[in-house]
C-alpha cells in the first residue's frame, strides 16, 4: 500500500490539489495582517533616516526605558530558565498528588489576559496587598511600583515557555543513558550535570529565547505594577504608547526599531549558541 503510494508520489510530485488556493490564502492574509504593517514601520523608519532615529534613541529617557526593558526581561527569563527546568523535571519524573493540576496551572499565564494578570499582581504586591503588606512590615521591601514588581510580572508571563519546551525532551531521555553513567561510577549529581543537562541544553535555550522575547515586549501585565516613573520604572513599550499619544510618531518608530533590532540581535546570538551546543552534543 505505502509502496504503491510512494510510487505514485514519485511519478507525479504533487497529485494533491489546492496548492494555488492554500498558498494564495496564506500569502494574502500574512501580507495584510503581518508583513505590510511591519513594512510600514520599516518604511517610516527609512524616511526618518538613521541620524534622526539615533537622535531619538540616544536620549536619557529612551535609553533608560530600553535598558530597563531588556534588563528586567533578562532577569525574568533567567529565573524562568532555572525554575522552568526544575518544574519540567518534577512534572515528568516524579509522581505526587495534584500533579495533573500543577501541569495545567503552568499554562495559566498563557491563558490569562495580561491586563488581568497586571491588576491582580498589583493588588497582591501593593503596599496594602496580601503579599505587599507583610513584605513591607517585616522586611521593609517594596515590590509594587519598583523594578522588582516588573520582574514579578515578567516572570509570571514567561513561566510556561521553558517548561513546555523542556518537558517533552526530558520525557524522551532513555533511562539506559543514566544507568550507564551510574554504572560507570558517576554520582547522581554528576550524571545530571554531565549527561542529562547537555541533552536538555538546546530545548532550554529555545525556551529561554521565547521567554525573553515575550518579556521584552510585554506591556499589559507590567504597566499596572511598574508605577511608570520616567527614567526609573518606565518600560520601552510604554514609552512608545506615550509618544503615540503625543502624536510623536517618529519618536515611537525610533523606539520600536531599537526594540526590534536588539531583539533580533539577541535571538540571533541565542540561535548561534544553540547551533554550537547541538554540535557539541552531537560530537561528544
Amino acid at each position, binding site marked *: 500500500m505505502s509502496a504503491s503510494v510512494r510510487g505514485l508520489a514519485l511519478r507525479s510530485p504533487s497529485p494533491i490539489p489546492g496548492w494555488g488556493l492554500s498558498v494564495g490564502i496564506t500569502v494574502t492574509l500574512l501580507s495584510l495582517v503581518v508583513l505590510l504593517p511591519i513594512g510600514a514601520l520599516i518604511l517610516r523608519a527609512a524616511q526618518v533616516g538613521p541620524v534622526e532615529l539615533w537622535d531619538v534613541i540616544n536620549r536619557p529617557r529612551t535609553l533608560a526605558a530600553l535598558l530597563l526593558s531588556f534588563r528586567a526581561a533578562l532577569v525574568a527569563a533567567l529565573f524562568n530558565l532555572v525554575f522552568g527546568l526544575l518544574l519540567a523535571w518534577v512534572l515528568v519524573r516524579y509522581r505526587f498528588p495534584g500533579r495533573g493540576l500543577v501541569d495545567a496551572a503552568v499554562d495559566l499565564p498563557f491563558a490569562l489576559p495580561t491586563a*488581568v494578570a497586571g491588576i491582580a499582581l498589583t493588588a*497582591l504586591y501593593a503596599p496594602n496587598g496580601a503579599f505587599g503588606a507583610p513584605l513591607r512590615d517585616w522586611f521593609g521591601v517594596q515590590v509594587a511600583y519598583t523594578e522588582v514588581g516588573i520582574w514579578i510580572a515578567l516572570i509570571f508571563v514567561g513561566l510556561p515557555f521553558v517548561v513546555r519546551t523542556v518537558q517533552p525532551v526530558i*520525557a524522551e531521555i532513555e533511562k539506559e543513558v543514566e544507568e550507564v553513567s551510574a554504572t560507570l561510577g558517576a554520582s547522581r549529581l554528576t550524571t545530571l550535570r554531565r549527561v542529562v543537562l547537555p541533552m536538555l541544553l538546546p530545548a532550554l535555550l529555545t525556551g529561554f529565547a521565547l521567554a525573553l522575547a515575550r518579556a521584552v515586549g510585554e506591556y499589559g501585565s507590567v504597566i499596572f505594577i511598574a508605577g511608570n516613573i520616567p527614567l526609573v520604572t518606565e518600560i520601552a513599550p510604554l514609552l512608545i504608547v506615550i509618544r503615540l499619544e503625543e502624536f510623536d510618531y517618529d519618536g515611537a518608530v525610533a523606539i520600536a526599531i531599537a526594540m526590534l533590532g536588539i531583539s533580533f540581535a539577541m535571538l540571533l546570538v541565542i540561535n548561534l549558541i544553540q547551533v554550537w551546543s547541538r554540535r557539541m552534543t552531537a560530537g561528544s
Partner: protein
Amino acid sequence: MAVVLARPARAVAPTQEAPWVRRLLIGVVLLLLAVLVGAPLVVVFAEALREGWLVAVASLGDEDARSAILLTLAVAGVAVPLNAVFGIAAAWALTKFHWRGKALLLTLIDLPFSVSPVVAGLCIVLLFGANSLVGGWLVASGYPIVFAVPGIVLATMFITFPFVARELVPLMTEQGKSEEEAALTLGASGWRTFRTVTLPNIRWALLYGVLLCNARAMGEFGAVAVVSGKIRGQTATMPIMIEMLYNEYQGIAAFSMAALLTLLALLTLALKSFLEWRHADQLRATGRH
C-alpha cells in the same frame, strides 16, 4: 560490580534522586507555583467579590461593560475563524507540497511571537492610520480602520496569527499525505478529500489551536490599546475596559470584568487539559510550546 551486588536491596536506585531530594523539589515547585500563579488567581475573585455577588454582577450589567463584552466576543468571532482558515491553508501549503520558500514562510508565520504587541499596534497605525496613504483614503471613503473595530480585529489577528498554524504544521507533517493521495486515486475531489480525510485527522489539533487562539484573542491588550482609541461603548474591549475602570479606582467593576476573563481562561485550560488527556495521540503538539 561486587560492591553493587552487595548493596542492600532497598537502596535508592542510581537513576533516581534520594527521597528527601524529591520531596524538597516537589515542595519548592508547589510553593513557588502557589505564590506565582495561584495567588493572582485567588486575588482576582477575592477583589471582585469584596462587596458580594450582587455588586460584582451588577457592575457587569452596566451599559459600557455590556458593550465591551459584546465587542470582545465580536472581535474574537471574526479574528479567530480567519486565523483558523489561515492556519489550515498554511499547514496545507507547508505539509502537502514541496516548494521553495517553505522555510521562509515558517519563519514569517512565527514573526508575531518576537514582536511586542505595542509595536504590532504601532505598525497597524502606521499602515492604516488617518495620516498614512492607505488609511487616509479609507477614512475619506468612510471606512476608518484605526480607532475603529477593523483595527482591533487586525491587531488581534496579528498577535494570534501563529497559533493555529503552529498546532497543525507539526501534526500534518507527521501524518504525511498518503491518505489524501489514496482518496484522490479513488476518485474523490480535492475538496471532498479535505473534508472527509484531512479534516477528521486534524480536528482535535485544530480545536486545540482555536482554543489557544481564542483565549489570547479575547485577552489581547497591548496591541488593541494602541489601535482602539479607547472610546467607551464603541472601541473599548474587555481588557481595555479593565484598564479604564482600574485607573478610575473602580476596583470592584475592574476586577469583576477581570474575573469574567479569568473564568474564560480557566475554561480554556480545562478544555485544553481534556483534549490533551482524551486525544493525546491526535495532538502531536502536546507539551510543545
